[in-house]
């Protein structure tokens, strides 16, 4: 077999574009959402490109890929794309093929939607499927939540877009920190140290430096380290650096929920998500408490936001104190920041609502 060719880079995108795109590249004039999951982009030339957006579990087999390739061959001259949120997009130049494609997708059990004021796919990570530091699973929660919020994927009845993301540990590979609703796996106990093996596997200076709160100190006697328990907030970064510092604790690992983040610069600028629920137990296979909490938050927002208001915009208008009142969520000392920028979240004004 041939040797690998290195540094050839990714395949050229131009080879991946259907003719209608090549002809109208950079010439799109406007778009419309024809119906949930279906976009039409109209070119300056008058040409039209139809996009059918279909949900995907992201963790897919080659058989699923072949299935959608079959559909793309049948309806789209063999062209399709994926979105930044892991949906599949079929690119059609022939309007009459849109509905038949949707029919075929339905038959396959693949939903169409995720456009406009909907809840689109949940950006997520590996979880128990393929990572070593997760505090929870990824795909399982995502599936359970999307089942429950399904109607919001296939319709566009919400006040605005709703972007949900999940990361299974504080490394936040899903970069969930700017989501309308973020689901985040958290560890809750101080890592356990395997003093015997630590010095064989890990460099102590690197390890002590890895702790954001300087909780780790060398223990020269044991050729190991100690963790000052009251300083540790269980981020797990020490474990990333050193397998002898075990962060996983099945009895305590859990899920937290964050709200009010945003990425786009549209209207108010990007925002970080903020802590709503510090603790929900891991309850596989369907995490009913997580699903319920997310659903309640979605529906509270949907019922109260003004048209066009993202979660963040709604909360900022009514205030966080009203958010906690309306949601009935408990406000705890965990909600009060105590990390490096804490003081910027404290209230330095007498202005607040009762």
């Amino acid at each position, binding site marked *: 077999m041939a040797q690998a060719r290195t540094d050839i880079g990714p395949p050229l995108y131009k080879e991946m574009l259907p003719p209608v795109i090549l002809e109208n590249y950079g010439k799109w004039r*406007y778009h419309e959402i024809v119906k949930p999951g279906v976009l039409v*982009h109209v070119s300056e030339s008058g040409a039209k490109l139809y996009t059918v957006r279909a949900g995907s579990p992201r963790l897919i087999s080659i058989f699923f890929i072949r299935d959608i390739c079959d559909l793309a061959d049948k309806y789209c001259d063999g062209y*399709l*794309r994926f979105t930044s949120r892991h949906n599949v997009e079929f690119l059609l130049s022939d309007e009459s093929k849109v509905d038949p494609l949707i029919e075929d997708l339905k038959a396959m059990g693949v939903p169409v939607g995720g456009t406009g004021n909907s809840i689109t796919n949940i950006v997520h990570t590996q979880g128990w499927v393929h990572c070593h530091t997760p505090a929870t699973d990824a795909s399982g929660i995502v599936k359970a939540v999307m089942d429950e919020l399904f109607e919001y994927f296939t319709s566009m009845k919400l006040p605005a877009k709703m972007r949900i993301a999940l990361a299974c540990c504080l490394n936040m590979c899903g970069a969930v920190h700017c989501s309308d609703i973020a689901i985040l796996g958290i560890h809750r106990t101080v890592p356990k140290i395997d003093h015997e093996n630590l010095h064989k596997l890990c460099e102590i200076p690197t390890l002590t430096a890895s702790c954001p709160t300087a909780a780790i100190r060398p223990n020269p006697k044991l050729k190991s380290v100690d963790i000052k328990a009251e300083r540790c907030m269980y981020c797990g970064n020490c474990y990333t650096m050193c397998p002898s510092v075990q962060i996983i604790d099945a009895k305590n690992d859990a899920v937290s929920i964050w709200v009010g983040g945003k990425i786009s610069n549209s209207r108010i600028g990007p925002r970080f998500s903020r802590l709503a629920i510090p603790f929900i137990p891991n309850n*596989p296979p369907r995490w009913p408490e997580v699903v319920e909490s997310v659903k309640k938050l979605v529906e509270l927002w949907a019922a109260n936001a003004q048209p066009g208001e993202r979660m963040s915009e709604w909360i900022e208008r009514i205030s966080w104190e009203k958010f906690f009142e309306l949601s009935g969520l408990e406000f705890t000392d965990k909600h009060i920041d105590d990390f490096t920028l804490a003081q910027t979240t404290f209230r330095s004004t007498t202005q607040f609502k009762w």
Partner: protein
Amino acid sequence: MTEAKKTPLLDELEKGPWPSFVTEMKRAAAANLSAQDLLGQLELSYEDKKAHWKHGGLVGVMGYGGGVIGRYSDVPEQFPNVEHFHTVRINQPSGWYYNTKALRQVCDVWEKYGSGLTNLHGSTGDLVLLGTKTEHIQTIFNEVSNFEEHPMDLGGSGSNLRTPSCCAGPARCEFAMIDTLDLCHDLTNEFQDYLHRPMWPYKSKIKISGCPNDCVASIARSDFSIQGTWRDDIKIDQEAVKAYVADGLDIEGLVVSKCPTKCMSFDGNELTIDNANCTRCMHCINKMCKALRPGDDRGATILVGGKAPILQGAMMGWVIVPFMKLESGSGYEELKEFLEACWEWWDENGKTRERIGELILRLGMRNFLRGIGREPIPQMVVAPRANPFFFWWPEEVIQD
């Protein structure tokens, strides 16, 4: 094939309307032993409420320092076929556009040497092939890089440039003010060495959005966020505005009143924009794309420093270059020089596992700007400093 283990917990996740990853795992498991063991091990995780993977592990292909994530089961006795179960990251084409040929040939390779399971795509943007044995890694790479059509390369992992990604861009979006696809492709090719051979303090990411809607979440998820923008006036088609009114759009309520700078007004007839005070948030254009279009003097704003929470809390990128021209096919020299300057400064000054944003915070923006040779401008900040703890360069004070 051995008889598949029972998975009562995971089976619960085949119920419900959203397509099921468990179903996908089972499809793969039906044809592949390692997928079968993955399913079994995952069921065990669902029982134990914890992952069953060992800590890390370094594996790779010849000539590269990254592109593969090593993964080993901690219960190999029970699930011998996932004793090794490494992930291969394939560099996706710009904007995740594919033809079916390209996708099918990857599937074929993965059927032969892998679990048959994938992520389309990973969070960074790669086409992720989920689970293979150590001995197959090189073969997989040999095969994908030798595809006759659309040969493929590995993406990034480790302390190097990570696979750049970009939004749908001018191929499918009227808002794209830069050619995200061309730029992403060009940069990825330019920096192949950085992508494949870890030599930096830590990872570095580039994401490119065609406009400030930032559909690839670049501001939150990349060290270098490149977002298309414009400098001249928004173009207004007043006839189209009237058509929106006729269609019943509440321009005052949904557009004008939500303009962040209140620089718009609508007298019931004509829409006016005070462009000097527009901050190009895109909102009005988003809502009325038939009537409003960005100006013609287009380029990008570049924000540096975005990243996930560890160590210092999550950061979003900070405006460093308010505007840079990025003409499609131009070679993007200015941008490349900028990136090189940033990386060089970071590489020289950064500690191990320190992202560039963290380094900027540690050494101060003033040192970063000096290091890369840029002048401070007010656009870099939302407000000047409030504390009086500022520094003077030695040449600025009178020395004895």
